[in-house]
């Protein structure tokens, strides 16, 4: 896994989202919603926007799935994948 993508995602969650989640509590396997980090509906939207802006990618409707947004690392993996695809196209 590209550490900088994972690190960036963790950094977005701990510093940019309007939720009080300390950096130390976020692990790659942390579940984003519910019993994990407990991101609510507003935080989820913010996260989508912030990730799109940070990495200059766009989530298509079919990308917005519970699987992609299950954990920190599943989200980071998706982002990496999309970045690689974009590089290949270029």
């Amino acid at each position, binding site marked *: 896994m590209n550490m900088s993508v994972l690190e960036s995602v963790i950094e977005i969650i701990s510093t940019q989202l309007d939720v009080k989640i300390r950096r130390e509590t976020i692990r790659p396997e942390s579940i984003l919603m519910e019993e994990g980090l407990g991101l609510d509906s*507003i935080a989820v939207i913010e996260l989508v926007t912030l990730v799109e802006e940070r990495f200059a990618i766009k989530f298509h409707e079919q990308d*917005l799935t519970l699987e992609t947004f299950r954990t920190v690392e599943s989200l980071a993996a998706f982002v990496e994948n999309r970045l690689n695809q974009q590089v290949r196209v270029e």
Partner: protein
Amino acid sequence: MNRWTADYSAPGAFGALLEQRSLQPSAAANTLSDGTLHCTYAALPTLLAPIRDRLRVIRGSFSQGAEQETVAYECPTSLPGALVLMALMAEEQSLVLLPSSTAELGLAPSPRFCRHILRLSAGTSPAATDLSGENVVEHLQIIEQVLDQRLKRPASSGPLFHLRTSGSMGRAKLVTHEQSTLLGNAANVAQKYRLVPEDRIFIPVPLAHMYGFGAAFLSGLLAGASMEIQGRSNLLTYLDRERRFLPNVAWVTPTHCEMLQRGFKSPHSGYRLVITSGQRIPEALQRAFDPLVCGTLVNQYGSSELGAVAACAPGDSLEEKVATLGSGFPGVELRVVLEDESSSAGVGPLQVKHPYGFIGYRDDDGQWLLRRESSDWFGTGDLARALDGGNRIQVVGRAGQSVNRRGYLIQLEELEHQLEQLEGVGQAIALSIPVSSAHGDTIAAFLIARPGVVLDVQSLRLSLATKLPQHATPDYIHVTDTLPLLPSGKVDRQSLIQQVIWQLSHSQEQNR
């Protein structure tokens, strides 16, 4: 007479209705689900039987000669939650419907006139699809609280259904309906929207509310349609469930529309009707979201007090839907009261006469605060304008000052009252500042201390934290000696608002 006209006040009406639904042609195919658990209409009587038995035991424990008591029920947005609610209604048990996260939301605990509090403990059996009435009963916690006083049962011929008013901040004010009028309201909804058993109805809003239960769930139940409820909906869970359930009707809020706007990259053509309610949807959002559901969005105007009042039809033009309330639900009348000079441009308070409205407000002790007859005109608290000689009504704004915070409507007057209850506070002014915070609009409060008292903002905030939920807490609290006044002697709120805006932008300048 139409298929929706029925005598919902007849004893056993709701129970009979459930029986009928379980025997309808599509009863084995049509389901109720919460995404994890599901059941068919056909299975309902069997599922409900053990729960109803348990409720009868509770009722049997009411002391000899006690008039019918009221049960407080903290209802989760889940299928077991809905089953218990249906069982309570089938047993004609008077109840107070509360959200299951009552403690979390910082709302007042159960009303003092309820001897029993029902709660469903979270966590169903390991085999998540193994739903049974016995299972639900096992998870049903029944807590008995000591009643301070014996309260008179209000005069009513049938069971009562109480709801908290939305936007309440800790002071319990209960909206009281008769179970029969609640059903009448639901029948109205089913009739207006022409709900049929073939519909697939998605309800991603809380059940413990007039909207989620009174309008959405009950109307779908009366129609015998498949329903999918969803608690704690967010963009991802909504899209996920939508893909699986393929609804053609959805009950949402403006907050949903806002978030789905980000997620719907192209129009969703499966809907024939999407209803939004709760707060008035901002015009820009309505214009942006309506095409994303192929023109099927309608704004339903109503309240916990009156139920469903008016709505446009999906077939109406977007211009019509944006500008007007639409037509009243069956039997509902609306009027704009034009008083004196304040009614410039024909704007006045909007009143409604409703055959299925509430019968009054009660407080935490069960005492009546207000009684209402169905022939009374009731003020909605909104200002409106009548167009086209009264045929079309346009809502212009709220009569009182209110602000939207995370989906809750906070009445500033109520907030001021709460602030004035704090130790040492003489006068409080709460203002809505047109600057966004993460919670919605920004709230600023100005406090004047009682003579001889020095107020400390830090300790005030600590006190507030125990009395108010987070969303009702002001973002800024200023202690001041004086407040600017208008010639009329009223506080110059606009001047205070400008002051706060200036301070906010000034501090931003300094930080650059």
